[in-house]
């Protein structure tokens, strides 16, 4: 085969790296069909169902969404902060730390979140008022409300699952890269901060992204202990209006939208990860 084109017209690496759809329109046939179908479904629901309750409950729904979002964000951040030492202890810790860490992860992953929530709220939570010292301390302001129990339970749940993910991620960082850090005089803490943790975090990121989206869908359990998140608001709507489908469909739409935002955020973070496939 003879090459007639000059070399300059060969696609460069940068161009090859871009998606194959470059230059093509976003309006693909399958996308148009899907759009039409979804618009038709929304119109159908709008025309055949009652939505007048939205006017009255709109502010409460917004507050509910806000509660769900901060329950999610706080439990993820705090849970991940717990997951790092949980994973590390299992990989590199002495037995006295590794065993409790493994036990914690096993316990959390082996029992339903709803059970943990109820045990803490209805069980432990009902013990606190019987202890005078607690009733007199500043903690009482929190312990007599429901949301701290929801946040705590969601946090330890996320920590339990992600502790296991981080255990695998820490263990999977190539031994040689850690050895290189050690050979150049890094202290154990510096090695963790500069090499081991970032490397493990980037490895775990795709899994973490999925788990964050799962965590969103665990938050409505908080409504079972009187935390009025967006699910709680919708449940109230159903009780007040005797409507069956419209509020639930609306709730599904809200969770879909939140999930979509999370997916986009995860994608942005992942695209900033320096390496892929390593």
């Amino acid at each position, binding site marked *: 085969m003879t090459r007639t084109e000059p070399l300059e017209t060969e696609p460069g690496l940068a161009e090859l790296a871009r998606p194959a759809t470059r230059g093509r329109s976003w309006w693909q046939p399958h996308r148009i069909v899907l759009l039409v179908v979804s618009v038709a479904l929304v119109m159908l629901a709008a025309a055949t169902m009652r939505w007048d309750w939205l006017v009255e409950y709109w502010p409460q729904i917004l507050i509910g969404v806000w509660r769900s979002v901060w329950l999610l964000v706080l439990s993820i951040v705090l849970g991940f902060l717990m997951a790092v030492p949980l994973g590390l202890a299992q990989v590199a810790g002495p037995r006295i730390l590794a065993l409790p860490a493994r036990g914690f992860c096993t316990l959390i992953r082996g029992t339903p979140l709803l059970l943990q929530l109820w045990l803490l709220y209805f069980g432990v939570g009902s013990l606190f008022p019987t202890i005078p010292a607690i009733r007199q301390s500043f903690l009482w302001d929190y312990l007599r409300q429901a949301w701290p129990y929801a946040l705590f339970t969601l946090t330890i749940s996320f920590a339990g699952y992600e502790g296991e993910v981080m255990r695998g991620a820490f263990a999977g960082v190539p031994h040689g890269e850690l050895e290189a850090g050690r050979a150049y*005089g890094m202290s154990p803490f*510096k090695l963790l901060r*500069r090499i081991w943790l970032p490397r493990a975090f980037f490895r775990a990121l795709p899994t973490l992204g999925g788990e964050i989206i799962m965590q969103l869908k665990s938050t409505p359990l908080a409504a079972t202990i009187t935390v009025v998140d967006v699910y709680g608001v919708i449940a109230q709507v159903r009780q007040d209006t005797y409507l069956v489908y419209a509020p639930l469909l609306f709730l599904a739409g809200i969770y879909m939208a939140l999930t979509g935002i999370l997916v986009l955020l995860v994608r942005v973070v992942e695209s900033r990860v320096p390496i892929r496939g390593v």
Partner: protein
Amino acid sequence: MSQETAPSPTADRASGHATGAMREAVVELVDVHKSFGQLEVLKGISMTSHVGDVTAIIGASGSGKSTLLRCINMLEIPSSGTVRVHGEEIGLRRNGHGESEIADRRQIQRIRTRLGMVFQSFNLWQHMTLRDNVIEVPIHVLGRKRDEAIRDADALLERVGLFEKRDTFPAYLSGGQQQRAAIARALAINPDVMLFDEPTSALDPELVGEVLTVIRDLASEGRTMILVTHEMSFAREVANRVIFLHQGLVEEEGEPNAIFNHPKSERLQRFIGSIR
């Protein structure tokens, strides 16, 4: 973190590879033993590397070459014996199980910043670009200023022929390129000694040459190096001292000419015969 300035080997360079006794000892091992469980890999090794020496450690697989090299920077902790770097003995003690361990972690961390290790499998940090790999230790261990570290890193990457690749991640590079970058990373700490642990063994044959060229270049500028290698012709060319290990003992040592052309021990004769 104290940053020790490396004594310049240039003064000794003029005299070439003259008699070692006149020059300052950089690395000294005295009666070093190392066991892994029941298996005794090093059975009492003593060696001295002086400023400007290029020492090649050769021997069959399993003779303890890599273990010996890794005992110098305590990636393996000798079961007994003494290791000195620039006359400073690395403190070891016995723990409760009778195993040898580092007595003072700060001391070994300080000494390690004077030893530039190059690994068989490169071990570049995969989440950093080449330049970030090279500036990592100068900035975060030696506490140097970032702009200075970057300037030096770019010069070193230029020197190993990877300046254009400075913003690339290791995973996108060939083994030869990764190893050259790893050499730049080692040079960035301006080490007193370069330790090479079979630097070409993990490379495709056609990539070996580019790495050897870089190492040869370092040898010619008089850098002190200890090199574990299977590349006999290369050892013969760049080393001024060759140590032949056999089953954890120094079987024979001397100048390359003596080792390769007039081997005394029968085992060395056989080893050299087998690789020809």
